[in-house]
């Protein structure tokens, strides 16, 4: 069972899921290499978020293989197991712990023993403070560390959630529409940040914003009606007639 069946970090094949008969994901195949950053684009309702739900254990597929790290069958695990394997997720609608401070949000996410009795007797350490400081500096929220997350702007919440992902230090990051609702300057800064992160993590990022995807400069997968429509460099896929039809010719 622990035998490596693929070299891919993430391997999806023949994955399907239907909601009340409507096939949101239809025989989807997708592979990510270790260390790779991949952009996923596709019109609204293409199934991008549902795909992330399947990878992170929120939704069980009706059919197909979802293999992580060459051998782990993700369809058999729940959200907490999958998170602890090293898959972190940023949601489309930013979800942070609103009643906690920015700093506490990061601290909760920080990679550590998650068992009840360890957290009950948890002691702050210099090493942990140092890590928190570094992350706060990376996401540029140092000045707001004591602020309740509820008081952050939309863009700041997006960044805090990216910071929480960093704190988890996962092998694979799933990032759902990170620049929705951001100004141009914020979008550019976010692209920088993600490229920075991609240096030592594998990243799967879903985004609509073409300028942002171009800025990332990575291989693009186009999703449509729950399946892969095209894959390749952005210039190539955006010249694909089927892609143009789906995006523009409705």
């Amino acid at each position, binding site marked *: 069972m622990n035998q490596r069946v693929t070299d891919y970090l993430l391997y999806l094949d023949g994955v399907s899921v239907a909601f009340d008969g409507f096939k949101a994901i239809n025989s989807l195949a997708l592979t990510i290499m270790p260390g790779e950053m991949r952009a996923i684009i596709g019109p609204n309702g293409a199934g991008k978020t549902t795909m992330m739900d399947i990878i*992170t254990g*929120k939704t069980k597929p009706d059919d197909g293989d979802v293999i992580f790290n060459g051998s782990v069958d993700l369809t058999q695990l*729940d*959200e*907490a197991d999958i*998170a*602890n394997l090293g898959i*972190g*997720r940023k*949601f489309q609608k930013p*979800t*942070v*712990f*609103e*009643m*906690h401070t920015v700093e*506490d949000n990061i*601290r*909760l*996410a920080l990679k550590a023993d*998650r*068992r*009840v009795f360890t*957290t*009950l*007797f*948890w002691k702050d350490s210099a090493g942990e403070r140092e890590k928190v400081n570094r992350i706060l500096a990376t996401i540029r929220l140092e000045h707001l560390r004591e602020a309740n997350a509820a008081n952050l702007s939309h863009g700041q919440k997006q960044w805090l959630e990216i910071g*929480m992902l960093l704190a*988890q230090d996962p092998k694979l990051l799933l990032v759902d529409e990170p620049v929705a609702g951001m100004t141009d300057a914020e979008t550019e800064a976010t692209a920088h940040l993600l490229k920075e992160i991609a240096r030592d993590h594998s990243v799967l990022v879903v985004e609509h914003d073409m300028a942002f995807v171009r800025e990332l400069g990575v291989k693009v997968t186009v999703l449509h009606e729950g399946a892969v429509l095209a894959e390749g460099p952005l210039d190539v896929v955006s010249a694909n007639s089927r892609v143009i039809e789906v995006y523009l010719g409705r």
Partner: protein
Amino acid sequence: MISQAILARLDGRGRIFLGVILAALVAVPVLNMLVPVGSPFHVPTWLVSLMGKYLCFAILALALDLVWGYCGILSLGHGAFFALGGYAIGMYLMRQIGPRGVYGNPILPDFMVFLNYKELPWFWYGFDFFPFAALMVFLAPGILAFVFGWFAFRSRVTGVYLSIITQALTYALMLAFFRNDMGFGGNNGLTDFKDILGFSVQAPGTRLALFVATLLALAASYLFARAVVTSKAGKVLVAVRDAESRTRFLGFRVERYKLFVFVASAMMAGLAGALYVPQVGIINPSEFQPGNSIEVVIWVAVGGRGTLVGAAIGAILVNLAKTTFTTGALAPYWLFALGALFVLTTLLMPKGVIGTYAAWREKRREKLALAANAAATPAE
């Protein structure tokens, strides 16, 4: 050193709360025992016991606030854990009666003789031994909460569905305890207690000691709850309350956190019940009434959910009102008053007495700071 660690976990509100408990710990015994009966400062024993009863409710409210205020589990069945703790100590008190019962049976409590029991049921074994009974005060509610929580939290029952099944739990227990063949005294419950630890339960000294024990238990419960909510685990609980699925995606096993806090809270409720029963002199199945558990929610809401101190204050205030109301001509209208109180606090003071007070103080401080600023900067 330990006391320093404890103080570091307290906020200003908590220090005041513990200060008041400490003051009562000194003042009430003095006013009850040393001040002569005729003096206006004398605190009569009936009042000591009445206050003791309120303090038990305060512990129960604290227990509910821990699960509801900090983890979002709206339990409408905490009265059941309270009652189980009460029954555990009640069984000990029954065994202490010995041959002094109406039927004079040295082993069997009166109700068993009356119901033609030939021997003591196995689940009464050990209850003549105080340490065993004291252990059961925590274990009986703890195990029930564990089994219930294990299934409920694993299958991710939340919100109103969870509340409804906790109501069903206490209701089912009430029906079970009403039955004579359950072996817990049926309808009449357990009563006519004589001694606790060799002291007469009626004696003023014992009543005072029970009051003091309850005060200490309240302080200990508060410190425990405070230690939990200020720990990293406490932050996880709040995270679960506000964004349960997000917490899962961070890798926390939400069901285990819920189970921990639910069991701890049930044990705290059991302790409250165990202190309550010797002070009121009876435990019967009506303690399992679904309405009792709902009242606890009202105490916490009135005092201020998620504040601990507020929950305790709410329990005392509402019960003070209840005593005043139900001993006068207005008695028949108590339930309406209670309902109105709940609706009004929910609408007008959603953060309860404590939250509203804190907000008022905050506003006043801002106003003062503003005024000070205006005075400091010369007019242009």
